[in-house]
């Protein structure tokens, strides 16, 4: 089974079809998607600037991230659910769209960056929790995170201009 065939199958399902046939469902879901995405990205800007040692300097990294991460994950889940619904209603079109593919790639890269940071760099957090400037590996993680997530937002906005 090809991914394209899978996309065609998805968009033929009842819920995606209902979203596609409704005049108002897509914009409303999109509003929630934009709200949750700007929340996630806005929070990550704050966290990444701290990792870069540029803002919230008096806050230990572990304390700041500990407070924000549950909210970021919650909003990210909302974003994924609403995003999946938007994708599902014309899944095959999105599947063929270069901007959409680029956004998915950037999301994977952002996720890998976060996973590496947590599995490797985070183990020594006690040593650099308050250190300014933070070690190069921490600053690099902050920079790449900021770059990938900015890419996700920009490329995401661009999808709407390239579909059809």
């Amino acid at each position: 089974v090809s991914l394209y065939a899978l996309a065609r199958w998805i968009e033929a399902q009842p819920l995606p079809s209902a979203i596609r046939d409704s005049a108002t469902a897509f914009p409303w879901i999109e509003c929630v998607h934009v709200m949750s995405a700007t929340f996630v990205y806005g929070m990550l800007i704050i966290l990444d600037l701290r990792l870069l040692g540029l803002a919230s300097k008096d806050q230990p990294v572990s304390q700041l991230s500990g407070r924000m991460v549950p909210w970021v994950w919650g909003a990210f889940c909302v974003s994924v659910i609403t995003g999946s619904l938007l994708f599902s209603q014309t899944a095959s079109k999105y599947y063929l769209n270069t901007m959409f593919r680029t956004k998915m790639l950037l999301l994977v890269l952002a996720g890998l960056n976060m996973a590496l940071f947590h599995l490797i760099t985070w183990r020594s957090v006690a040593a650099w929790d308050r250190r300014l400037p933070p070690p190069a590996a921490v600053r690099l993680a902050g920079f790449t995170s900021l770059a990938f997530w900015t890419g996700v937002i920009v490329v995401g906005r661009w999808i709407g201009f390239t579909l059809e």
Partner: protein
Amino acid sequence: MLDAYAQALSHLIETSRLGVFLQNLKNEVPITQSLHLIGISIVVGSSAMIDLRLLGLMNRTEPAGEVMARFMPALWGGLGFVALSGLVMILTEPSRALPAGEFQRKMLALLAAVAVNILLRRLVPRHDAAWQPRAVPKALAVASLVLWGFIITEGRWIAYR
């Protein structure tokens, strides 16, 4: 009356040299909208940090005044950035925004959100570590979050008129 004014103003901008110049810039619309979205994220992130602290949902151990002092500059800076990119969007496609009810409601809500946050800045003491928000600051924090959500919603709906 307001409609006629909005349409006349739109026509004036559309046919002006600046308007024509912006309309002819390649990819100007998606670039400006992307910048607008980045600015909105800065506003939402910093405002949420303040509002969630006031509501006792995040960061309860840090004095509210300090959280506010930390994020208010980002809130206003981000808002300036949003206003600037928004202005460019209006100058490029004035008849898309100015006569739209969604746009007009969005601007009213924006004024309300600015007023709510100025009021919050005045209500929360800067250097009182023991101060905890009561009903009024909490209600304003809810209003702030709801207003940003409303502004985003109206903004997105402008595209579907």
